[in-house]
């Protein structure tokens, strides 16, 4: 992360507050004008916003529906399951971060992917129920819960698909290469809303009439198809960053193509693209808001139905600002984590 160049000036002399002001805000006449102009605008916006937030705004809509925002219509008696899931997710996110940043014993490191798989199964069981727990239909998984669930599943499923497509695009077999290129470019040329439309409306038409996918599953299918193309492009960037010498060295040691790919190229390539994948995760997290246009009640969807409650008609600003804050906290903290990772992995530098 580069600092703005201006800050690179050696600051051997500690400036007095007045000196700082003069240097940073009023060093030339036009900068002084700019400062005053910006300050005035900033002040106006802040003043209007604060006076609205503390006098006109009625935050009762957020208070009354707090639970709805987070887990939607998930049965109250079962909500302890969701809190456990959030807890597990937080721990796992921390563990993974530590693992990537090499702060874990390497033994644990090796097992982490498998732990993820097991944890994932447990989470699905905890949310969905069955075998001992009361089953909860996907109709009732709403709000932030659904947003996080669809994002994680979609990114997880698009990961292997994206790697295959990236390898396919680099392949020397023309059929495989052209298929991959065609897929990637077509999907990247289409708006997500069109792909979701396809998943919701066309998927049932092309599947045999015995198979009826759940609506949430159809949405996930759409997100995976979409995300895989972008994942492929990210992974391709990583593949290209692996020096040719690595492949040649491995070949001279007698490795065959598959082994080279699995043990030499992919580990290096994937390591290099972790920040890009976090970036994609953030993008997908925001993109799940489009599911609300297909009658799925994720975070944006639930805010739309809360706004239809007769007693809270017209409280748009409050609801959308609150929901926006939730999205922002998640995306911003992830992007901070990604920047930290970039530094740890030392891949940000060119």
């Amino acid at each position, binding site marked *: 992360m580069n600092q703005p160049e201006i800050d690179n000036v050696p600051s051997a002399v500690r400036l007095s507050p007045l000196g700082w002001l003069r240097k940073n805000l009023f060093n030339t006449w036009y900068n002084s004008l700019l400062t005053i102009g910006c300050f005035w605008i900033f002040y106006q916006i802040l003043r209007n916003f604060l006076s609205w937030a503390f006098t006109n705004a009625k935050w009762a809509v957020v208070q009354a529906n707090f639970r709805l925002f987070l887990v939607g219509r998930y049965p109250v008696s079962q909500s302890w399951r969701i809190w456990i899931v959030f807890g597990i997710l937080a721990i796992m996110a921390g563990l993974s971060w530590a693992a990537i940043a090499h702060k874990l014993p390497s033994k644990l490191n090796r097992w982490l992917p498998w732990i993820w798989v097991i944890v994932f199964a447990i989470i699905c069981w905890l949310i969905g129920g069955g075998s001992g727990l009361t089953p909860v239909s996907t109709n009732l998984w709403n709000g932030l819960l659904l947003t996080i669930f669809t994002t994680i599943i979609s990114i997880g499923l698009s990961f292997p698909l994206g790697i295959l497509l990236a390898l396919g695009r680099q392949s020397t077999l023309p059929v495989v290469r052209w298929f991959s290129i065609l897929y990637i470019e077509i999907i990247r040329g289409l708006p997500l809303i069109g792909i979701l439309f396809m998943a919701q409306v066309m998927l049932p038409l092309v599947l045999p009439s015995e198979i009826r996918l759940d609506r949430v599953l159809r949405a996930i299918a759409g997100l995976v198809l979409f995300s895989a193309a972008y994942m492929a492009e990210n992974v391709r960037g990583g593949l290209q960053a692996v020096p040719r010498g690595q492949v040649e060295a491995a070949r001279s040691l007698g490795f065959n193509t598959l082994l080279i790919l699995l043990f030499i190229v992919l580990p290096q390539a994937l390591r290099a693209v972790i920040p890009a994948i976090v970036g994609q995760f953030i993008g997908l997290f925001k993109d799940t808001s489009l599911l609300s246009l297909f009658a799925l009640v994720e975070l944006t969807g639930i805010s739309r139905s809360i706004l239809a409650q*007769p007693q809270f*008609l017209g409280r748009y600003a409050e609801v959308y600002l609150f929901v926006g804050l939730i999205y922002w906290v998640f995306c911003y903290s992830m992007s901070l984590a990604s920047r930290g990772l970039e530094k740890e992995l030392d891949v940000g530098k060119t």
Partner: protein
Amino acid sequence: MRKWCLVLLTTLPVLFSLVACGGPPSSTPATSRLDTVKSRGKLICGVSGELPGFSFVSSDGKYAGLDVDVCRAIASAIFNNPDAVEFRNLNAKERFTAVQTGEVDILSRNTSWTLSRDTSVGLEFAPVMFYDGQAIMVKKDSGIKSLTDLKGKAICTQTGTTNEQNLGDQMRKLGIPYKPVVFEDINTTFATYAEGRCQGVTSDRSQLLSRRTTLPQPQNHLILDAVLSKEPLAPAVANGDSKWFDVVKWSIYTLINAEELGINSKNIAQFANSKDPEVTRFLGKEGNLGEGLGLPNDFAVRIIKNVGNYGEIYDRYLGPKTPFNLPRGQNNLWTKGGLQYSPPFR
């Protein structure tokens, strides 16, 4: 290399002919949806879920409304259990695909019966549950009294409905230019009207009435008298399954016929020993009307006991004791000047 090309060239046509053989649909005699529903043990019913009076989730978490009770009646006929129904919320746009693809067994979602929907969309419409007409709602203080006052004004409407089309047709006929503002979602449509972006909002009269009760000051809104169109709201099933269609059709006629005969959920026990052949046939004491439908002979009794007759359902959700207080009008029995009429049960 040439050899490989040759092999490729010869195998590809073989492959494509294989594909072509697999392509045309093999028309196997499909099992009826009735059997599917029976073996599943419950009915899957597509509803709006957000339209007070027709389908909504009551405070105790149960679905209720006129559209909902159609599905409960059918579930009663098949399983003798009005709760053997799974409700799915559908929006105006996805409702037809949901029926076409069999995601839902029946669509009971204030859907207008039109020729093109009957033919090109691949639906089969059951008897009309509610005769409606399209109208326009405006704010009282806007001074708009008739359609001509709407000249140059913005009118909010929902896409994917016949309303959008009717509005266009009517205004064109009258030569009144206006600005349509179209939304995908019904909540957004009414919210936008409430915020004052549109001077009017158009929908079926019943819908306007029910939506008006949810606006901050219902008395400040006026529904114009002009009727823009006929909107017969009917449940629908997918084309090409007459066995299932018959079950749906006659379950609904049962509701109407029961009202014609004066049988309701409270007095049905008294009719058990009736000597009237019309009643005994209808209630399955005599003859085998149910058999022809693939239902037990007492299907009518099951329906009436569990959900009541048409009049009872209407009063429960739209009658004088509800906030809507909607007069029966065209939805009265044919014997009382309305349009509801059941073919004979014999």
